[in-house]
């Protein structure tokens, strides 16, 4: 078997397959790659038609070199998944120019598999997975077509007929492979990364940003992308109290709030983690969308219940590595506790009282005046609340840009329109200017319940900024200045607070709500099961399935299951025989013969009905009437009209009379 040229069917399959594999990645491909892909496919088509000659090797070489340079120019040396995919696609796209024979087209097929697999880095939705499976079957079909490619259809029209079932064959292979794949998926232990991967996607996922200058979060407020899902393991929470802490900002440069103070992070060892279930605790489980950062979401004072998660001095939960894929973790929240009750260190007070040396004089003056009448920290906060709620402050997502050098003055005394970041920033500034340690906390507020699956979703539009002040004897206290002006904003979520500005995605619409909940529930189960099935979840599932067993037993069970599965597949080989379909007449003859043979008559294989009847007659002449009737019936069926079928009743009648005959013979023999 030589490296044969491809038939047109295989080429067609290849072309469709390549196009679909490319479409998977179309959003993250630079335009020039797409252009090249289309160009090459058209070119290849003309080569196939015979209008254009196959390109010279020099041309191909130049194209490949050009492709690599193009990828370098687009992405630089910074390795990223997109660059890798682009490089693969450049190879994939230029390969068809060369493909004339079977072996090279296998390469294309394998590259398609790889592209399908890599797409899961970007798309992990259940719908995406189904589509990937469809593509997998198609790629398998292409592989079957390529394998058959060298056969000439004109040699035998049987081939032409059977090649219609290429897709069917591929589907069969796919279906047969599923049980073993499922088994391996559930049983195989997951390894940790073999080497560290710092490759991140360049597109950058929308999420909180690590700094805050008012105007930032306006974008977020309108994004309905999912941030994370959460399930509460014991008691249902009060949605109003869900302040998901992600970041703590301590440094203000006059325009921007950012994180300068990096407090120590405590990494609780795994064995200490799980048994701290005090009263009033609220364990929860988060499935987090990849945010390409290390931050996780904490509630109140949280302790992690999953290994590998650290807790910082300022109450944040952090992961060891940047989160590029969906992650599941558990933590235990204590809503009633406060941090740093005992007092702040000198370093901490310095950070939490930091202010720019100049600017915002009006605000400082205002704070000082207020402080003179309200001495205590809490008193001061209450006075501030009264001031903001009694004056004309508005909550809006499009407050306009603050242009002056003193943005806080401008906001507090001129525009008076803003969103959480404006209010939080200004309040922290005012607090600090009178010597109250304060910090901005960024995160999400609220959650949307999905009653179908019993979990809560937190979307990007739940992003929020609030304030913590440190009060002697009480520790850090949360105040949410945004709640001071617009209570609905906190009570019913951002949608109802901003009805005028939100049109895009109202989940409140009466008939859309349940459907949306169903789809979200499906997504949740998918995430909870498919994406998070590793580590603890896997252990739990396996011990639920097989009970608690020691390692040796477990291994024995695995091996047994593995071989049982493979054995089951091989068992199908045993049943691969043609079943000959007998006509009614043939079936009756068989019965007739069996009836006689069991009574000790010796029948030859080639005997006709007449001969058999003759034999029966010589042995039991007194049954002549029955024998003749049976013979007549069978012969009519067999010879007069071979296509005729007995009605069920007739067939039964003959079968019964054969039985009767056999009984009578036995009686005669016994006598």
């Amino acid at each position, binding site marked *: 078997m030589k490296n044969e040229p491809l038939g047109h069917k295989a080429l067609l399959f290849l072309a469709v397959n390549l196009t679909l594999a490319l479409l998977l990645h179309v959003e993250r491909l630079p335009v020039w790659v797409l252009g090249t892909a289309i160009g090459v496919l058209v070119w290849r088509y003309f080569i196939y038609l015979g209008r254009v000659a196959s390109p010279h090797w020099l041309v191909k070489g130049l194209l490949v070199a050009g492709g690599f340079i193009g990828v370098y120019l687009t992405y630089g040396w910074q390795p990223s998944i997109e660059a890798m995919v682009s490089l693969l696609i450049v190879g994939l796209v230029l390969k068809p120019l060369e493909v004339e024979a079977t072996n090279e087209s296998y390469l294309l097929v394998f590259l398609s598999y790889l592209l399908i697999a890599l797409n899961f*880095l970007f798309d992990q939705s259940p719908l995406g997975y189904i589509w990937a499976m469809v593509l997998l079957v198609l790629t398998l079909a292409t592989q079957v077509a390529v394998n058959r490619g060298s056969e000439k259809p004109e040699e035998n029209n049987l081939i032409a007929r059977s090649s219609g079932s290429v897709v069917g064959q591929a589907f069969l292979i796919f279906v047969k492979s599923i049980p073993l794949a499922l088994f391996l998926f559930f049983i195989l232990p997951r390894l940790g990364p073999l080497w560290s991967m710092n490759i991140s996607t360049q597109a950058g996922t929308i999420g909180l940003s690590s700094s805050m200058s008012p105007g930032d979060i306006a974008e977020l407020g309108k994004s309905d992308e999912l941030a994370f899902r959460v399930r509460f393991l014991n008691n249902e929470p009060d949605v109003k109290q869900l302040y998901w802490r992600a970041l703590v900002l301590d440094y203000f440069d006059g325009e921007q709030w950012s994180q300068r103070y990096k407090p120590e992070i405590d990494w609780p060892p795994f064995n200490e983690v799980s048994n701290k279930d005090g009263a009033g605790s609220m364990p929860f489980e988060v499935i987090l969308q990849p945010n390409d950062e290390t931050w996780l979401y904490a509630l109140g004072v949280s302790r992690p219940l999953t290994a590998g998660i650290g807790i910082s001095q300022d109450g944040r939960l952090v992961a060891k590595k940047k989160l590029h894929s969906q992650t599941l973790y558990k933590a235990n929240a204590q809503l009633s506790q406060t941090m740093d009750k005992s007092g702040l260190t000198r370093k901490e007070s310095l950070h939490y009282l930091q202010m720019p040396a100049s600017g915002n004089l009006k605000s400082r003056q205002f704070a000082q005046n207020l402080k003179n009448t309200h001495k205590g920290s809490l008193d001061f906060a209450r006075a501030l609340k009264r001031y903001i709620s009694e004056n004309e402050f508005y909550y809006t997502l499009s407050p306009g840009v603050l242009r002056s050098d003193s943005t806080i003055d401008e906001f507090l005394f001129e525009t008076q329109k803003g969103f959480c970041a404006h209010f939080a920033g200004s309040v922290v500034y005012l607090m600090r200017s009178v010597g109250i340690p304060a910090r901005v906390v960024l995160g999400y507020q609220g959650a949307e319940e999905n009653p179908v699956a019993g979990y809560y979703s937190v979307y990007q539009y739940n992003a929020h900024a609030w304030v913590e002040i440190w009060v002697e004897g009480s520790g850090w206290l949360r105040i949410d200045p945004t709640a001071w002006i617009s209570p609905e904003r906190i009570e019913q979520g951002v949608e109802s607070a901003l009805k005028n500005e939100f049109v895009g995605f109202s989940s409140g619409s009466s008939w859309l709500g349940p459907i949306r909940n169903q789809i979200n529930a499906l997504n949740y189960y998918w995430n909870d099961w498919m994406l998070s099935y590793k580590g603890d979840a896997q252990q739990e599932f396996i011990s639920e399935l097989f009970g608690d067993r020691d390692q040796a037993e477990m291994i024995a069970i695995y091996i047994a299951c593995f071989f049982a599965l493979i054995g089951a597949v091989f068992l199908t080989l045993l049943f691969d025989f*043609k079943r000959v379909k007998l006509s009614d007449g043939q079936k009756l003859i068989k019965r007739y013969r069996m009836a006689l043979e069991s009574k000790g008559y010796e029948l030859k294989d080639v005997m006709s009905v007449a001969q058999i009847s003759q034999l029966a007659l010589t042995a039991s002449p007194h049954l002549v009437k029955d024998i003749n009737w049976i013979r007549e019936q069978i012969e009519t069926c067999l010879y007069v009209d071979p296509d005729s079928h007995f009605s069920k009743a007739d067939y039964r009648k003959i079968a019964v009379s054969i039985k009767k005959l056999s009984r009578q013979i036995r009686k005669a023999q016994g006598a």
Partner: protein
Amino acid sequence: MKLTLKGKFDAYYQRWLNKRSPTSRSIKLTQKRIFIIPNKMGLLFLSLVVLVFVNGVNYQNNLIFSFSVLLLSIFITAIVSTYQNLSGLVITSGHANSVFVGKSAHLNIGLSNSARKNKQGLWIGFSRKNASAIPVVDGVHQLNITYKPNERGPFKVPKITLFSRYPLGILTCWTWLRLKFDGVAYPAPVFVPYQYVGRSDQEGEEADDIINLGVDDFKGFRKYQPGDSLKHIAWRQFAKNDVLLTKEFEEAQAQGHWLDWKALPGHETEMRLQILCGWVVRSSEEDREFGLSLPGLDIPVGRGDHHRDTCLRALALYGISSDLISEGA
């Protein structure tokens, strides 16, 4: 040293193979005879599986992991399907036409498939490189493969390989067939002028006479008898009267036209056989009556295609096997 080791291994492998697949007329493919191994593309596929797996592990991406596992079990399914495609096939050796050494014979091979599934993408040949495709086998299929014997005697057909890469092309599944065929390789004819040697009573007398072999004079018609050469049938008469007649010719040396081993004293055995073979061919082309005399075997004078085949068979099997000579008769 290396070479001898390899030689030893090859010999061992051949012995093992012979034991596993002995020569026979009909072979049913079972797990004893079927070999299966991933080919180059298969190894590439496996490295693809590893690559996807590493991606899944490094990005901690369960979906990529599941995809790699799925690809792996597709590979295992492919092993079963590829094996299944060959197993249960019954291969029977059929007719083989006898030819002269160096000429091509057609070996007829029957494939019969009793399984529910069609057998697809099969290739057959003496080696992988010179194999030809077999169309889909559903039920019974007949095919011919060409064989060039290079030694006189019964066909010693080398092992034939039947292989398939169906359905995914990543595994090669093959078997070695050692089929027995009835064909006989006649000695390659060498044409030298005919030398007449009288029968034992006149031995030596006319040993050097060279007899002209020419077209004889037409004598008349007689009724056709089976075995008469087709060349001498009076087709014109047949067209007219619908009666088969054979033209008869006057034969100058009709009696005692013996092709005799003893006429070629100075030659080696094989050469003698080849020359005798040439004479048989020539005589039969010219439709003479002739007999063949070999040490220990005399074939009486006769004529016709059947007689010719008997003589050629005797020449082919001379000194190899005497009981086979009559088999063709």
